[in-house]
């Protein structure tokens, strides 16, 4: 299965490295101009394309890792051309656009996997499994945190092109809350500007009375990214935070410069991006269902849009 990357930015590099580690047949990269894809093409020995049609002819599966605002045309054209598609999250900027992508997959009978990578982070997955197994009883209050620094790439910082921090970043935890508790019945959110970034706190209420508090944003100084969860049930609690010491640490005098976009990493061999792509390729090859359906990705997007509307004071 020949895989091509549609996009040549931060996520393209992360996915390319994961494909290489798993020995997948990654062959091509598309970017609207050659300069954008040159270094990626060279680093991973890929054939670069400037023409999307010709790129589609050269691959069997398209991994759309381009900026969010071009997801829909790239994904739909690939599906139309008969290609299976892996689509980076958030799947689209608005629900109608997300629905059109889903509809394209349906009508052309192609597989569509939306890369909701948080579900492949081992600590989040383990916690969800423990909750399902009843380890903490019935969930009562769920706390989820994901705060990073403002990305240094223009389109991320433009809410018209990225959806802003709620749609781009908080969507992970909104999806996780849905995974644990289903669809909320009510949402209330406050957003404040922090320097050039933003900070959001959202309250969710679920059927049966469970509550969730979700914090997200681009509000920290450059290089800092903190995540965590606290899942309280009527019989116990599960806690994890990125502030906790990781399995491997180094103590050096010099500090590496921060990346352009904060990405949470699980560390060690359990790279969640690799786990996610492995799962997608395997499910596509065997025809098995995806562990996170595109309908879930769409529901997470709709929830993110509801949180954003509340934060903007739109009823």
């Amino acid at each position, binding site marked *: 299965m020949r895989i091509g990357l549609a996009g040549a930015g931060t996520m393209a590099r992360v996915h390319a490295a994961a494909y290489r580690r798993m020995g997948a047949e990654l062959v091509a990269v598309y970017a609207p101009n050659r300069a954008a894809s040159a270094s990626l093409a060279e680093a991973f020995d890929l054939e670069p394309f400037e023409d999307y049609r010709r790129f589609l002819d050269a691959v069997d599966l398209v991994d759309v890792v381009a900026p969010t605002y071009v997801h829909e045309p790239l994904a739909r054209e690939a599906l139309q051309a008969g290609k299976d598609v892996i689509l980076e999250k958030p799947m689209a900027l608005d629900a109608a656009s997300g629905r059109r992508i889903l509809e394209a997959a349906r009508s052309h009978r192609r597989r569509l996997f939306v890369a909701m990578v948080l579900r492949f982070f081992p600590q989040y997955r383990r916690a969800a499994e423990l909750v399902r197994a009843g380890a903490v009883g019935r969930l009562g209050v769920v706390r989820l945190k994901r705060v990073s620094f403002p990305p240094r790439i223009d389109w991320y910082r433009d809410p018209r092109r990225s959806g802003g921090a709620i749609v781009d970043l908080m969507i992970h935890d909104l999806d996780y809350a849905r995974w644990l508790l289903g669809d909320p019945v009510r949402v209330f959110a406050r957003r404040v500007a922090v320097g050039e970034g933003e900070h959001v706190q959202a309250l969710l209420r679920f059927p049966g009375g469970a509550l969730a508090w979700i*914090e997200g944003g681009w509000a920290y*100084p450059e290089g*800092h990214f903190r995540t965590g969860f606290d899942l309280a049930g009527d019989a116990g609690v599960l806690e994890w935070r990125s502030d906790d010491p990781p399995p491997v640490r180094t103590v050096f005098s010099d500090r590496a410069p921060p990346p352009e976009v904060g990405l949470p990493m699980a560390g060690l061999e359990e790279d969640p991006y690799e786990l996610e792509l492995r799962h997608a390729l395997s499910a596509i090859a065997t025809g098995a269902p995806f562990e996170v359906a595109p309908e879930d990705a769409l529901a997470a997007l709709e929830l993110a849009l509801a949180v954003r509307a509340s934060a903007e004071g739109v009823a």
Partner: protein
Amino acid sequence: MRVGILSFAHVHAEGYAEVLRGLPGVELVGFCDPDDARAGRFARVYGLRRYGSAEALLAEGLDAVAVTSENALHRPLVEAAARAGTAVLVEKPIATTVEDALAMRRAVEAAGVPFMTAFPMRFSPAVRAARAMILEDRIGPVRALVGVNHSENPRRHRAWFADPELAGGGAVMDHTVHLADLYRWFLGEEVAEVYAEISNPFDPEVEVDTAGLLSLRMAGGASASIDASWSRPAHYPRWGHLQIEAVGERGTLVLDAFAGHLHGWTAGGYRWLGYHPDPARAMWQAFLTSVREEREPPVTWRDGFEAMRVALAAYRSAREGRPVAPAEL
């Protein structure tokens, strides 16, 4: 100084008794408590003299008393202390209604008696260091506050905490005021608006809320949240947490007031055993010093009142499904 304890209803009274017995120059004269079983227990545990009524204890001519009855029963004790001319340290929340809180103010003002609200976290070294960093502008203007003051279900220690009449509510009434007070104290401004989701996911046997999440807007525009849930299980290594993160323009401050602890594998299983000084001791020292020197107590009736109004606004918000200004109450 001669001090008394008006009721052992609140769990904090036990800690205060320990503190007062250890403070130099302080004589813990005795206590009153209408509950015979409870009174018998604490008379034994602390070797304290029990008085038949608040009036009998106050007739000893005390310098100060702790009012640590059930939340809804502070008012008659404060009024009795005011009549006796005795300074009061009133447990949080200072009352369960605006009416009671205002009546207490009238009583102490008319008698010229000092009133201090018991917010011990203002005397935690970690909390003071965090506030100092904000006041010194180390993180820049604060745009968001994230607060956690969750705990185990106190009903296991005192049933009245889950009695809506005596407690005035559940987890939200119990916990909201600590963080509401610290937010006011950190930023020097009032809470302008409260939205709350309140629920009872943790204890089907009680009528009150066991979980509450509050979303606040501070007067200066900062967004703030409070988790006031009784969400820690009985087998949690400690009663709970008090944590605040302040997101500023130039950096973020992370406060975990009880982070200083030993990992203890003791007879009771795994426990977090704190090693920092008890903030309640510093609170009592500050209160008694202010009484002795005839200065205004460092935490006022107004502080207790404003924090209580945030909790009351949370309940109204949950009832009416809209953001509520504490000033409406």
